[in-house]
């Protein structure tokens, strides 16, 4: 059973004032699939590279099984890594690429051959073993890179956006394959991506980062249903959550575009936390904005009237874009056959039981702590 601990890990590059990674704390248990996700430049790759030993850790401790490995070189940390560019050695055959790590560890030649054959079988590249990487397609190269990592049994697998160079279809199938391999190996996998769909589908726990700081750590469901702040709320989920600032007064939320009555639960929290007569931000996911008379009957106090700005037809649903306030774009996902065209004025219903509340100044979720208590 291995435990990986990152304690107050910070990264500051030479000649810069700012920290690229600020105070990173995380404990990873054996067999976990951890995904670091965030926009570009948020420090997720830097953190991964510090774990890999490719970057120095400026401050803090990195422990594997209780042993501090900050100053240990990559090869002694017992890790394997898949790079975004795959980083296959162009002058070596696929076989040598996969077997290089074993060769350096002075494995027996026949042993290497057997292991390479076995792993090639698993990732499905047996017929290309004698070819050079250049002769393979992107997907095949990706498999070689996976195979090269899988041939050893390290404590930690590191993956730096391994799917970003694949086309959409291949990405979906490879995603499933990586998840399957992770389960088969039972080691810790740390996976970096900027794609929240990859994070949602693969992770046991997601570490969402922004500007070098951890925004929230939790299961995909935690992050989606109970975001800690507005950044987490808008980053997770597709289409992104719509948010708007307005004022809260005696149970009613008023912004430029509309006025709605909040649910008793929300009102209780807002009143209890002293938000009456003050500015708040509300967030609504696209699938919580409904259309139809049934909903209007159900929730008559959250009906809003809007002008359709744009429509995206997706086959199984339709995304409707509108601007309650100029410059603030809202998205509603409705059933695909609704007869609506651009510039129509229609009525939509916000589900009052699924409104996220954020502090207007700190952008922190107002309901985060209450919901968290409710969970346990």
């Amino acid at each position, binding site marked *: 059973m291995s435990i990986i601990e990152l304690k107050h890990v910070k990264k500051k590059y030479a000649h810069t004032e700012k920290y690229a990674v600020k105070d990173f704390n995380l404990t990873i248990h054996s067999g976990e699939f951890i995904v670091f996700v965030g926009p570009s430049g948020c420090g997720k790759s830097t953190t991964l590279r510090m774990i*890999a*030993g*490719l970057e120095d850790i400026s401050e803090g401790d990195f422990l594997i099984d209780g042993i501090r490995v900050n100053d240990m*070189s*990559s*090869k002694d940390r017992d*890790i*394997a*890594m898949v*790079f975004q*560019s795959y*980083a296959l*050695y*162009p*002058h070596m055959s696929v076989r040598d690429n996969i077997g*290089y*790590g074993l060769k*350096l*560890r002075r494995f027996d030649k026949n042993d290497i051959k057997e292991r390479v054959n076995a792993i090639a079988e698993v990732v499905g590249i047996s017929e290309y073993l004698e070819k050079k990487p*250049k002769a393979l397609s992107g997907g095949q190269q990706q498999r070689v890179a996976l195979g*090269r990592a899988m041939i050893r049994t390290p404590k930690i697998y590191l993956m730096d956006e391994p799917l970003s160079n694949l086309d959409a279809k291949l990405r979906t199938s490879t995603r499933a394959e990586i998840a399957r391999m992770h389960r088969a190996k039972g080691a810790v996998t740390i996976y970096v991506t900027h794609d929240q769909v990859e994070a949602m589908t693969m992770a046991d726990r997601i570490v969402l980062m922004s500007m070098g700081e951890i925004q929230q750590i939790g299961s995909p469901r935690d992050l989606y249903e109970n975001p800690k702040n507005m950044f987490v709320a808008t980053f997770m989920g597709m289409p992104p959550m719509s948010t708007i600032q307005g004022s809260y007064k005696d149970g009613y939320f008023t912004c430029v575009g509309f006025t709605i009555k909040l649910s008793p639960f929300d009102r209780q929290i807002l009143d209890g936390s002293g938000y009456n007569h003050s500015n708040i931000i509300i967030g609504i996911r696209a699938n919580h904005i409904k259309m139809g008379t049934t909903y209007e009957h159900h929730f008559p106090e959250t009906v809003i009237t809007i002008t359709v700005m744009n429509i995206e037809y997706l086959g199984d649903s339709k995304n409707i874009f509108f601007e309650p306030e100029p410059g603030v774009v809202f998205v509603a996902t409705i059933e695909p056959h609704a007869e609506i065209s651009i510039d129509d004025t229609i009525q939509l219903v916000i589900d009052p039981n699924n409104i996220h509340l954020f502090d207007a100044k700190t952008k922190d979720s107002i309901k985060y702590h209450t919901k968290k208590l409710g969970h346990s």
Partner: protein
Amino acid sequence: MKKISKFQVIKFLGISFNYFILIFMSIIILFPLFITLMSAFNQKNSLFSITLIPEKISLTQNFIHLSTRTSYWHWYLNTFTISIASTLGALMIIIISGFIYSRYRFKARKPALITLLVVQIIPPSSTLIALYAIANSLGIYQSAYSVPLTYLFMIFVYITTGSTINTIIMKSYFDSVPRDLDESAKIDGASHFQIFKDILLPLVTPMIVVLGVFTFLIPIGDVIMPRFLLASLHSKDTTLALGLNTLISDFKNSNPNIFAAGAILAAVPPVVIFFIFQKYIVSGLTAGGVKG
């Protein structure tokens, strides 16, 4: 009758023009070579026989003259000893320093690279007198081993002059190898030396060959430096370029045909090397165009 479109005419004219230029340039390059070759086999002692192909052809006469009445094979040995030694020495410096400048970050890196660039601007010939003075004050010419020491000194000079700009070229070629490969090898468990030996060295081979061939060729064609540094030595201890030069420098007693024969023989090793390393030379020279 088929109608010929305007486009086809333009295309044909374009191709013709390309071939015209190619043929024209080939003639300019090949014709002197042809004359040299012909005069090397010419029995009469004249550079220009009345016909293009000499009337009396002898395959061996001029070469025998070269072997028996001059110290040609001494010069040959001297020259290629210098060439090989300075190539090996320069390559060693170029490869290692190119690797370090490309892969490691240290304080003196930028100043050192700029210094290399500046030093490289000064033509080596401008320091010839100083080189002679240095050799002299080191006591090389007075020593009992003046010949080997002089050659060692020359090799040293060729290594230094040959490794300034080439280090920078090598560095940029190392730069074109993605760092991901180093890092991947590092995680695979490779040491710094193994990364260098297993990953980078095979990938920069084309440039090593190109720079190697260029450094190899310099001593073969160099007349000026040997003239200064080897002036006081016996005529058999000189280099090819200088030795052959003595055959035609005296206008009255000049032997252009012997010279031509010597020049043809001197060209053999470089040509062979070019043929062996053709593949690398092409890929090395066209490097950086399109990355595969």
